[in-house]
């Protein structure tokens, strides 16, 4: 049995602020059924849109996930958005008198939902760490099982001063399923610790036309489409002519208002990994 503190138990058995806010100013959603936990956070601001007057949550997950959500809402009520944004996952854990290390990912989930909610409200880029639940993903997916990016892992490693892959699993879940990404996690840790620079995936110096086409296909298959799938979207490669890459959006991406952004994202990826001069064109097809 987990050695939960009395406070964790109490917040699990009597969680504060469960529910929805129908006219919420900000909503942040992270996690999924497949991952085993998910949190939807609702925030209501005062009339000046400065201070959080109410916060509610809905959580699918274990006792510590529910307790962490409850703690989060208690911590941010009455704070300005900037003050709330400064809340760390460690503060959530501390509020509960600590969490077993294996359960620290629950506190991280709380902080994540908060960041997402506020970023969405402010209309800036949404700091998406998971490849689901958000419109786009920054960074590269490291943990395929839980869809976690290097950007996200780096941030959690830095904030919590993690030094082992096991800790990273406890705080983020990364590496906790198939374990295939553990070597990569170790690389990221040493990178963060400044121990050794990691070899980056570089675009090749010179390309034959054939190789370029193959590479474009590879990047679309491995780096782009899996991210679109996560949001129920997809794309198809229609044609390649010189530096021009024609794609057609499918499923949720087809007719999506932000498909222009997605096309730019695809272009960015291809420029980063194939060649600087690639132009992506969206075509009907």
């Amino acid at each position, binding site marked *: 049995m*987990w050695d939960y503190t009395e406070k964790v138990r109490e917040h*699990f*058995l009597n*969680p504060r602020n*469960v529910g*929805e806010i129908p006219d919420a100013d900000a909503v942040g*959603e992270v996690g999924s*059924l*497949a991952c*085993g*936990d*998910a*949190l*939807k956070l609702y925030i209501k601001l005062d009339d000046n849109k400065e201070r959080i007057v109410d916060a509610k949550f*809905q*959580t*699918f*997950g*274990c*006792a510590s*996930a*529910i307790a962490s959500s409850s703690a989060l809402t208690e911590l941010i009520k009455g704070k300005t958005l900037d003050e709330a944004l400064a809340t760390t996952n460690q503060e959530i854990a501390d509020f509960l008198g600590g969490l077993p290390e*294996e*359960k620290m990912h629950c506190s991280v989930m709380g902080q994540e939902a908060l960041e997402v909610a506020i970023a969405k409200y402010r209309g800036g880029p949404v700091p998406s760490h998971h490849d689901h639940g958000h419109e786009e993903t920054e960074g590269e997916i490291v943990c395929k*099982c*839980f869809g976690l990016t290097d950007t996200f892992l780096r941030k959690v490693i830095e904030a919590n001063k993690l030094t082992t892959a096991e800790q990273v*699993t406890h705080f983020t*879940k990364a590496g*906790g*399923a198939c374990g295939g990404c553990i070597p990569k996690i170790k690389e990221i840790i040493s990178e963060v610790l400044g121990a050794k620079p990691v070899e980056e995936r570089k675009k090749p110096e010179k390309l034959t036309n054939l190789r370029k086409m193959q590479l474009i296909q590879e990047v679309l298959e491995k780096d782009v489409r899996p991210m679109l799938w996560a949001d129920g979207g997809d794309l198809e490669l229609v044609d390649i002519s010189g530096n021009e890459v024609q794609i057609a959006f499918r499923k949720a991406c087809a007719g999506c208002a932000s498909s222009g952004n997605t096309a730019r994202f695809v272009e960015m990826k291809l420029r980063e990994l194939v060649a600087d001069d690639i132009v992506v064109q969206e075509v009907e097809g």
Partner: protein
Amino acid sequence: MKEIYMDNNATTKVDEAVFEEMRPYFCELYGNPSSMHFFGGQVQKKVDEARNRVAALMGAAADEIVFTACGTESDNAAIRSALEVYPERRHIITTRVEHPAVLTLCRNLSKRGYRVTELNVDGEGRLDLDELRRAVDEDTAVVSVMWANNETGVVFPIEEVGKIVKEKGKGAFFHTDAVQAVGKIPINMAASTVDMLSISGHKLHAPKGIGVLYVRKGVPFRPFMVGGHQEHNRRAGTENTAAIIALGKACELAGQWMEDENTRVKAMRDRLQASLLELIPRARINGGQAERLPNTLSIAFEFVEGEAILMLLSEKGICASSGSACTSGSLEPSHVLRAMGVPFTCAHGSIRFSLSRFNTDEEIDTVIRELPPIIRRLREMSPFGREFLNA
């Protein structure tokens, strides 16, 4: 708070009669059965009696019983022995749903050059015998297939498996982890294809720390633990006399209670299952269409997470277990549920109730009363559950 214990596939209460049987062998009759004096000799007699009682429960001969320290040791000893007997063979067959005692060993062996076939199961947890038929070859040293699954209670057709192993394998050994089966369903080694079989004492109301490896007469055996001559050179180490004597008594009682297990206990399980399905929407039975142990119910609830259910049940004194990730410290649902392809919407919300002869109808009533509001409460709290409740 009085506990309602429904986690008997994890461990069981030591039957008080079993405890009384073992009690004198700590402070009074503490002799070593190997000693030449009367004081050890009288313990030897009780150990022999225990061996006979264990053999009787499973239709075996007394000299086919080897006492070990636990089910895991028995599993390890059986598989490693088979590999030593056939040093030139490099193939092991097992299933994806085995207990870690077998699965982890096989996976470790696969890193050391063995070819391991893990047989698949269908959505109900049933074995594909055709897959087994295709897998067994002359390179196969051992086939290890559990008799009954600890998480779902699904019972495998052991004799059909054994027949295939004997027909298709060139003398490949057939081992079964019967830790969950022995004492719950009748088994008869006198008319069986099984070469080696593992038992764990604490699953049938004996104490922890005692196990049995059945080794069929004539089956060559290479011991895992070497040292003294105990257990006819098949398992070195001074006998855990008190626990052996306890296990003998527990096996005798299991034989006497076998009918109760398969009638009254089964009826309680069936009633619990039917009532929960009726009272809780979006619930499904894991392995419900397969042949199952009479005491086990694995039930999955959509949109909620297992650990949270268990903790709320625990508040009511109800002890069950879960196939969910969070309870074990792992991050994925159990390998058994994943092998069965249980939909991810409910894999995290699977709960196992495993009954014993000590459970009562009143306890079943309590669970039927307490569980539905717990599921409702967690669904109201869950973003997915709410969508479903509102729909």
